[in-house]
């Protein structure tokens, strides 16, 4: 039995002739405790896919089900970490996490909730910044608050929607290690959406490429059978790493890449003629010899 299952899901925007199908025929099944990465081009519909899993949007066809139960609306069961953090700017780090915890565990006594909040703030190493407002934090710190908030809800599944794309390379590497460490400690089911293949290989059990849109669909999955804990430095020399990377990138650039279109147009060339200035001008040479010449051009667009 699959833990999370998407069956023949499609989603489009617009109506009638203008309708553009973003996702088409998505089938995905994820086991409990698995870490799955979905890698694809930006603009392919990755965030739409995540919204469907989170329940923020409903699919046009097909079903999304968590434990055989259809997903119809968002729920703290499926905590989501957005690319742009979506922290509430008027609340401190502690209050941002507390808002979620108070809502998800209303029956707990106050001390237990407080302990729980502090535990997750500590887990993302933000204890010294617990009373700061989001605008006083760096991008990496904000995203850690967002991760802490999501984890503190104790969700059945954690959805990471390009959580690290907005960060610089160094911060990103640190946070990748942190995500791996946290995942090792409580083995939640995680769906990570990213445009970074290396990030997917470093963190996930399984990588699934998403083909370029429109009508994006999931490509053949690749198992990441590299032993954990994975070391960033050693990974670069691991032959299996290179193989997986090649496979995923190969699909994204090949079959799952942008469909190439060619465009042929007829162009009328302007009536100009090079003039030989070394020769004296005569009335005869002033007129172009070719007139209204046409040329057919083919351009490839992606």
């Amino acid at each position: 039995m699959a833990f999370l299952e998407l069956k023949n899901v499609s989603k489009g925007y617009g109506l009638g002739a203008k309708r553009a199908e973003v996702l088409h025929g998505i089938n995905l099944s994820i086991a409990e405790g698995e870490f799955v990465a979905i890698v694809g081009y930006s603009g392919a519909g990755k965030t739409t896919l995540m919204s469907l899993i989170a329940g923020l949007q409903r699919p046009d066809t097909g079903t999304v089900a968590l434990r055989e139960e259809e997903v119809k609306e968002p729920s703290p069961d499926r905590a989501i970490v957005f690319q742009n953090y979506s922290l509430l700017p008027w609340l401190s780090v502690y209050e941002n996490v507390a808002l979620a915890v108070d809502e998800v565990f209303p029956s707990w006594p106050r001390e237990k909730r407080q302990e729980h909040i502090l535990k997750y703030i500590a887990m993302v190493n933000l204890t010294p910044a617990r009373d700061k407002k989001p605008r006083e934090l760096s991008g990496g710190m904000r995203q850690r608050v967002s991760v802490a908030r999501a984890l503190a809800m104790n969700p059945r599944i954690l959805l990471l929607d390009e959580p690290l794309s907005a960060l610089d390379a160094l911060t990103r590497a640190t946070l990748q290690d942190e995500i791996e460490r946290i995942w090792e400690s409580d083995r939640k089911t995680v769906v990570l959406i990213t445009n970074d293949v290396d990030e997917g290989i470093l963190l996930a059990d399984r990588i699934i490429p998403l083909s370029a849109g429109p009508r994006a669909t999931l490509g053949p999955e690749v198992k990441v059978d590299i032993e954990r804990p994975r070391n960033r430095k050693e990974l670069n020399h691991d032959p299996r790493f290179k193989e997986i990377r090649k496979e995923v990138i190969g699909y994204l650039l090949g079959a799952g890449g942008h469909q190439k279109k060619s465009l042929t147009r007829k162009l009328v060339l302007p009536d100009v003629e090079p003039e030989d200035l070394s020769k004296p001008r005569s009335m005869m040479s002033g007129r172009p010899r070719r007139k209204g010449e046409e040329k057919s051009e083919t351009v490839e667009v992606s």
Partner: protein
Amino acid sequence: MSALIQTFENVGLNWFIPFLRLLRGESPSEQFRQILLNIGVPILAMLIFLGAWSWVAGHVKVSFGSVPGPAAVWAQAGVMWDAYRADRASEAEFYVKQAEKKKTFLAENPGGTWKERKYSGAPTYIDQIFTSLKTVFAGFLIAAFVAVPLGIICGLSKVFNNAMNPFIQLFKPVSPLAWLPIVMIMVSALYNPKDPMFEKSFISSAFTVALCSLWPALINTSLGVAQIDNDYLNVARVLKLGWWKKITKIVIPSALPLIFTGLRLSLGVGWMVLIAAEMLAQNPGLGKFVWDMFQNGSSDTLAQIMVAVFTIGIIGFILDRIMMILQRAVSFDNATIR
């Protein structure tokens, strides 16, 4: 020190900051330039204004003498202040005398009931200022209590917004002078208690202020609510916040800066409208004062009206500053408010 500078910046006293920096010894030439720019230029402009005013005052004749210059107006302000002090003194004297009378009365007929009397001098200029302030705040509070909830519903519901829109467009441009007769008639019809807590003129003026200052707060609140970042609403959806919690924890905090912008505009409009409303409703505030002075036409009239004009201006400025400080206090990105 830098905390002090921050405080001055927050309350809008930016012109004072160069002095603090100078005390700290920060690049004196730059600070002197700032002082010249922030204080020197306004003072110069003020002097030019006063000069032009004096010149006009010396050259224009009106039906009851000459137009008062700055000095005459300043002197008149002093006279009005003295009149206030004199009135306060006689009020205190009245109560002292009354207390004495009460004592002798009770000594002569023990068990008798002494009727307490209130001092009944004519309201002084300062009393009139406070009446005006009381009236404008009453009107402003009515407006805020109506406009903010309505604005929130407008911002949340497209249907409700479209229902409200024609009324907003239709009533927003209506002058207080048009509302006032309607309000006065309605108040006369509906407010007839035996022992009235408020004067009818006060209620009429306050409601007219409310009717006119409603709109900026309503429009800004609905704009603020409609503009809420979708991410914040997604947070509310993922957490499955209930309707009330969504409003109090997400909608209001994120719309608060714009709500306060609206309230600040509302109070400004209210203060402007109040003077006209008081003139017509005869509510004993600054508007009535201006009207009475205009009617009695003594030689001091113009000077007194000018004192009133400056008073109205200064109070309006102070009210705006107070609202600005509140606005900054509730904003999470308070650098943008000027």
